[in-house]
């Protein structure tokens, strides 16, 4: 790295930049005057820049508590955060420009935090949680708290001995309020053999001060906080050796959760310390709190709360169906009935989401267990039945959506006949893939809307009811299956990627339908590579050669469909 050139460039741009030695380290130091003061910015020289060059704020202690600046222990330096490094693409081929850009960002941020006090305070509250984490001990276990946020007592359970990861490795706090929530039962299922660690209180704060910049300042922060906020006298009078105080407060970033642990020094029990003197009898440490409720976890981890009340019947738990239920679960579907009579075997391992722990288990049961353990707020049931066994009007009308992934056009058309004849109102998605990675399809049949499953089966040559879908990319009547062991062992070759791709288009349709974003009967296809098909001498359809709308949601209606005109 040619720092001489960088210094020359910065000087040319009007900066006062020099190369110096600080604590035996080579540094680039920039001095910048601004209205009311001077900034000393220090960059420790590096061999290459793999991120936006970092500058530390010199004489940090003179500025007080600045947003986006954290103290560097043992030095009077402040570490400045000018944004998410991963979201910046740095010009490492022109380092001088990268330095200039970084310097401008540092100066703009710092002068604003120093000069605009109100903004600085708001930013300190916005980044409260991040600053709180800075003072927490990295080696201490997280505190998982299942609570609504109201003022109440919390029972604290210790981590399970020997656990290094998962919920068992963390403290668990459960309030009376939370005991009636679904998440309680879920967490309780995780580990039933926890020991009680003590008790604590959930304390909502109306008056939040910025987080202390060092753990040494935590006591002072605590005393000011309990002085400025309401804490029930019932809590104040409670005596104990160890308390967990779990705070929550509204910040510009939303509701923030954090906590402290108070442990008495020596023996005996005491009530919560309320002044400096009584605090001397306690050890105080900050703790990381992870709130465990659906309102927080589901949106944060990618689920949609709007799907929590939806009920889906999934018929077919094979490679495609397995992928679909995982993705529907991940989307936040609250209720699912999984239906499949098949057993999970070794032939399924490499293209099915299930692990080999479930070999010999019914696929619907296995997936139900998997989903229950994976998604905290899902409720699953299973049915060991075939599609045609489900022809019950009341039963089918009880769902918000039916998804069929069985790859059986005969059964699917028969089932569709039943839906039509019995005026079933529930939307239905049929999805299937084709062999050799050529593609996959999903069809959404919204009852009482133009377009139905049979639109996807109209024989395009004759206008008659076809037996094979007109969406298919492979021509009919080709011997596509592979037979390794005789009758009953025939299979259509495809891999997990094809299954997952197909599941993606079906799930996308499902979510769009359940959220009311898709309001007409639709079809979606994905088109894959045909090299395997061609090398085996199979023929593709015209649709395959002409298709250029992979993943696009297209109208399903076919004007020659007699059922849509029935």
């Amino acid at each position: 790295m040619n720092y001489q050139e960088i210094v020359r460039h910065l000087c040319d741009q009007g900066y006062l930049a020099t190369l110096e030695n600080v604590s035996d380290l080579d540094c680039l130091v920039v001095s910048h005057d601004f209205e009311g003061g001077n900034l000393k910015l220090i960059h420790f020289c590096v061999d290459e820049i793999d991120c936006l060059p970092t500058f530390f704020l010199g004489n940090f202690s003179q500025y007080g508590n600045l947003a986006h600046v954290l103290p560097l222990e043992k030095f009077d330096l402040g570490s400045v955060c000018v944004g998410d490094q991963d979201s910046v693409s740095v010009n490492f081929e022109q380092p001088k420009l990268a330095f200039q850009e970084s310097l401008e960002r540092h100066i703009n941020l710092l002068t604003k935090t120093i000069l605009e006090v109100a903004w600085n305070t708001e930013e300190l509250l916005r980044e409260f949680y991040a600053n709180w984490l800075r003072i927490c001990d990295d080696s201490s276990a997280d505190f998982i708290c299942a609570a609504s946020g109201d003022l109440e007592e919390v029972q604290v359970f210790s981590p399970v001995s020997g656990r290094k990861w998962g919920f068992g490795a963390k403290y668990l706090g459960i309030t009376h309020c939370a005991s009636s929530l679904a998440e309680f039962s879920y967490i309780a299922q995780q580990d039933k053999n926890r020991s009680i660690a003590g008790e604590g209180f959930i304390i909502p704060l109306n008056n939040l001060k910025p987080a202390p910049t060092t753990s040494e300042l935590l006591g002072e922060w605590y005393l000011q906080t309990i002085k400025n906020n309401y804490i029930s006298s019932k809590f104040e009078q409670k005596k104990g050796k160890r308390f967990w105080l779990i705070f929550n407060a509204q910040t510009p970033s939303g509701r923030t959760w954090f906590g402290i642990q108070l442990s008495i020094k020596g023996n005996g029990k005491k009530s919560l310390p309320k002044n400096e003197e009584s605090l001397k009898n306690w050890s105080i440490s900050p703790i990381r709190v992870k709130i465990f409720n659906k309102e927080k976890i589901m949106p944060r981890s990618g689920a949609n709360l709007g799907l929590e009340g939806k009920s889906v019947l999934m018929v077919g738990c094979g490679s495609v169906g397995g992928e679909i239920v995982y993705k529907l679960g991940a989307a936040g579907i609250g209720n699912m009935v999984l239906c499949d009579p098949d057993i999970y075997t070794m032939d399924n391992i490499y293209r099915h989401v299930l692990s080999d722990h479930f070999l010999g288990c019914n696929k619907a049961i296995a997936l139900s267990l998997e989903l229950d353990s994976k998604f905290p707020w899902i409720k699953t049931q299973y049915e060991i039945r075939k599609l045609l066994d489900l022809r019950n009007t009341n039963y089918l009308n009880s769902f918000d959506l039916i998804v069929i992934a069985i790859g059986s056009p005969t059964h699917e058309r028969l089932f569709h006949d039943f839906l039509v004849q019995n005026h079933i109102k529930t939307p239905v998605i049929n999805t299937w893939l084709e062999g050799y990675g050529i593609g996959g399809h999903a069809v959404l049949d919204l009852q009482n809307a133009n377009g139905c499953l049979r639109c996807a089966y109209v024989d395009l040559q004759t206008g008659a009811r076809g037996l094979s879908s007109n969406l298919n990319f492979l021509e009919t009547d080709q011997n596509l299956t592979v037979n390794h062991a005789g009758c009953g062992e025939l299979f259509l070759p495809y891999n997990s990627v094809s299954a997952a791709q197909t599941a993606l288009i079906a799930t996308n349709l499902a979510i769009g339908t359940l959220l009311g974003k898709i309001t007409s009967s639709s079809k979606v296809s994905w088109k894959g590579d045909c090299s395997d098909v061609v090398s085996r001498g199979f023929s593709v359809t015209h649709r395959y050669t002409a298709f250029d709308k992979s993943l696009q949601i297209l109208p399903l209606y076919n004007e020659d469909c007699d059922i849509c005109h029935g």
Partner: protein
Amino acid sequence: MSIQKHFNTFHDAIKLSKQDDAYKTARERDDSITNDVRNAFKDAGYPVIEDFIQGSISTDTAILKKSGDFDIDRAIVIDCDNAPDNCVKPKITLCENVLEKRGFQNAKIKKPCVTADYKSENLHIDFPIYRKNGAEYELAIGKRNADESNRKWEEADPRGLKDWIKDKSSYIGSASDKLSQFNHLVRYLKRWRDEKFSEGVAAKIHSIGITVMAKQCFSPSFDSDGKPDDLIALKTTVSAMLIHGYFTAKANSQYQVSAFLPKKPWRDIFDGSSVNTGTQFRNKLSTLEGKLQDAISETDEIEKCKILREVFGDDFPVPEKSNNSASTRKAIFSSSGAVGTSQGA
């Protein structure tokens, strides 16, 4: 209802295939006569080594004639080693020892074949006779009393021609459907010919000529979903036929038509054709192109069908009211018992 469905209805009304009940009697007569031919040729010392249907029935391009007549082209093949040098001899054998014995008073020895008419059953059978040497065929050319200079065993490739017409190797994606569309187009063109030309001129616009021209100019048309559009395909194919070079301009806005067989003997199908035939063919084909374009441009379903009925005659359906209204439609079921599909999950 889509215009394609009307084309399908029209096609079903005009097509003639081996499986049709209407063809059953004709086929039985043909089989019976062929059996007699085999016996007669065996007695004559040149046994039949193979026979096959050639012509439009074999290429799935046959139509029901408006007159109700059926044509059958039955190729009779004898071995080259047994075949007489005089190629007319077996034709006479067929005519006298088979057809006349069966009461055909109008059996004729024409230049390329022997013909017989079952007048009571509107059946017309042509018997081209070939001799075969290895894989090569030679057709017996010559009339009954033709001298040596007017008769010969001429190189021919009836199977090659049939394969060429049925070839789909150049069609990418749903090749069978594209060949099927070609077959539809040839049938439409034949019906158009029968509808638009006098009987005399129509007879000179040979079916094999239309078939070869259409094959060479065929432009399949399918939408992105794979649904055929016969109207567009026919229009683009007819347009290509007009500019392909089949029609040579002559004086006074007249035209000579010529199209060569794509297989042996590579002859001009319209050899000896008059400029009147060429001119009418070319001009009516041009009119057809315009009418097809009108039909494409027309947005109203009924009006579209009326234009096409004008072109193809009364077998082209014209609905009473547009299908855009939510009318109940009768289900058409698949004609297959089952098909293998590529669907899995």
